């Protein structure tokens, strides 16, 4: 192989291109006019052309030995701005025929496609109508998903359990490390911060009450839900969104498979079952983290555990668990909904994933607020 490395670095190096002034309003182009070299003479040429506004303008291309479409663009622009006053002479026939393909008149400034400014009422109107359309879609989706879920509970054999289990593994089992990490840190931080203050009153043992109640009632379910919103709602939206972009959703429909029943129900079931399990796991790990901190304050694990049992009622635990069922349903549902609402193109998938996480977080917080009020009135 003798030809290796024969040519040096000249593939795209700007070769010599010169714009020479032959006479007033008469210029010569010498060398190779290409997409890289054209930038250097574009402005000088048009500057010269402007100075010759009253006279005809000549460009002699006799010494031009190469001209690509970027060079042709230069001539098109010259012919467009100067019309008959511009004369491009001695252009090689091949390049001339390329130039003849373009009608300079067609390359004038484009009509500005920017939208006209809307006034306040129009903005409000658009926002309102979009909001209403979104709400309508959501209500429709809730109904559809509800019917499909009910149908599945009526006929469990109709569900593709293999899909549901694979999704449950991804949502649940694979989330264990991150849930454990966050829950443990929460238990440790809460216990430590409160223990430092409570030690001043000799009340370190009541850290167990604080950690136990806040973890089981609020933080366990909430933190797990927030983690799943970031992990699984985004994943659902991205996956279903990509399927939408690739027309796979349409393919499902034409095969007589309802996308909601086929895609959404397994995910909602996985969310529904896995979120409470992860919450229990988070609760336990969080309590353990608190217990470890207590050891530092010379309170043995047994004492901590007994104090927990007196402080925490089963109602606290089950109250948290009920919440996590609802969170799981909301996270999976909104993830799927945003996926199904995906528009076109790769950017739309990203937008859907973002919207899924944001919507899931909002729904979690709103639902948690409702539960707080509900539990207060029910004395749970």
């Amino acid at each position: 192989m003798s030809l290796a490395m024969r040519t040096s670095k000249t593939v795209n190096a700007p070769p010599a291109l010169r714009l020479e002034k032959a006479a007033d309003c008469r210029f010569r182009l010498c060398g190779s006019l290409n997409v890289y070299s054209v930038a250097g003479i574009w402005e000088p040429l048009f500057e010269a052309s402007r100075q010759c506004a009253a006279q005809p303008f000549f460009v002699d291309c006799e010494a031009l030995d190469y001209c690509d479409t970027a060079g042709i663009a230069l001539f098109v622009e010259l012919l467009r701005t100067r019309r008959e006053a511009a004369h491009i002479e001695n252009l090689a026939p091949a390049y001339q025929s390329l130039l003849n393909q373009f009608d300079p008149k067609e390359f004038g400034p484009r009509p500005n496609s920017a939208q006209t400014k809307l006034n306040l009422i129009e903005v409000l109107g658009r926002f309102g109508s979009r909001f209403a359309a979104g709400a309508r879609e959501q209500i429709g989706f809730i109904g559809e998903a509800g019917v499909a879920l009910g149908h599945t509970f009526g006929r469990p054999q109709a569900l593709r359990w293999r899909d549901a289990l694979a999704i449950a593994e991804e949502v649940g089992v694979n989330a264990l490390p991150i849930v454990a990490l966050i829950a443990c840190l929460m238990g440790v931080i809460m216990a430590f911060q409160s223990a430092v203050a409570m030690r001043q009153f000799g009340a370190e043992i009541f850290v167990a009450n604080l950690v136990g109640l806040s973890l089981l009632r609020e933080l366990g379910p909430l933190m797990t839900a927030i983690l799943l919103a970031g992990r699984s709602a985004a994943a659902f939206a991205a996956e279903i969104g990509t399927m939408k972009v690739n027309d796979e959703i349409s393919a499902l429909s034409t095969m007589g498979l309802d996308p909601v029943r086929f895609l959404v129900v397994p995910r909602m079931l996985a969310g529904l079952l896995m979120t409470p399990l992860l919450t229990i796991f988070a609760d336990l790990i969080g309590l353990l983290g608190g217990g470890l901190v207590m050891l530092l304050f010379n309170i043995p694990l047994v004492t901590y555990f007994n104090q927990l049992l007196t402080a925490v009622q089963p109602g606290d635990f089950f109250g948290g668990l009920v919440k996590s069922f609802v969170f799981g349903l909301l996270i999976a549902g909104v993830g799927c909904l945003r996926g199904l609402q995906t528009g076109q193109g790769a950017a739309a998938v990203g937008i859907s994933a973002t919207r899924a996480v944001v919507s899931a977080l909002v729904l979690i917080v709103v639902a948690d607020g409702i539960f707080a009020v509900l539990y207060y009135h029910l004395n749970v």
Partner: protein
Amino acid sequence: MRKTFDSAQPVVQVDALRSGMGATIIHDGVSFEVKRGEIFVILGGSGSGKSVLMRHLIGLHEPLSGRIFIHGRELSTASAAERAEILRSIGVMFQLGALFGSMTLLENVSLPLEVHTGMRPQAIELVARMKLALVGLSGFEDYKPAQISGGMVKRAAIARALALDPAVVLLDEPSAGLDPITSAGIDRLILRLRDTLGITFIVITHELESIYAIADRAIMLDKESKGIVAEGKPQELRDHTDNPKVRQFFNRQADEEGISAT
């Protein structure tokens, strides 16, 4: 620029390429040369590794063994800067277009010009609009890829491949799925660009009409032998081949019934 190359030197030279994915060998001992200003067509049934070969030519896959030279320089041993420079002289149209979905057609075509040339924005816009006009997409500058038809996406992708007036243009099935009129228009565009600008084209295609219309030379890849089974002018291949696979291809005959179609 292109003038600096020895015109006798092949633009692309593939020497005993052996490639594979995992344990499967796709090509074994594939060698060919593409001369400057040639329209070179790669043929082959589905699964014969045409697109993989194209990806090797632009350095997306590393060969298991064998060498690939572009303008006499080997891609896999070139430094990063050299590699970028070589790749800038190659325009590629991928099979599905691979247009950027978040950008309009004009922005898609303008992007390489903005990055690699020092032209002013108005000049870039003009060049990009001319490229779109070349492929018959005037008036669609502000459309996004998702808003236009599949055939238009292909043509826009060709316009983007031509953006930097590259010395070599690789087209992966430019006319598949297009109507005969548009497809003939693309053939004419390829011939015209070759004749006026001396661009070398490497085209993967199945369209027999298109092969006869544009190809100076063709190679046919085969799945079983993992190599080239025929090389030459398409008319000659059609009329003078002994290979039953090649005859079948050019005469549009299906495999014998009862024999598996692998």
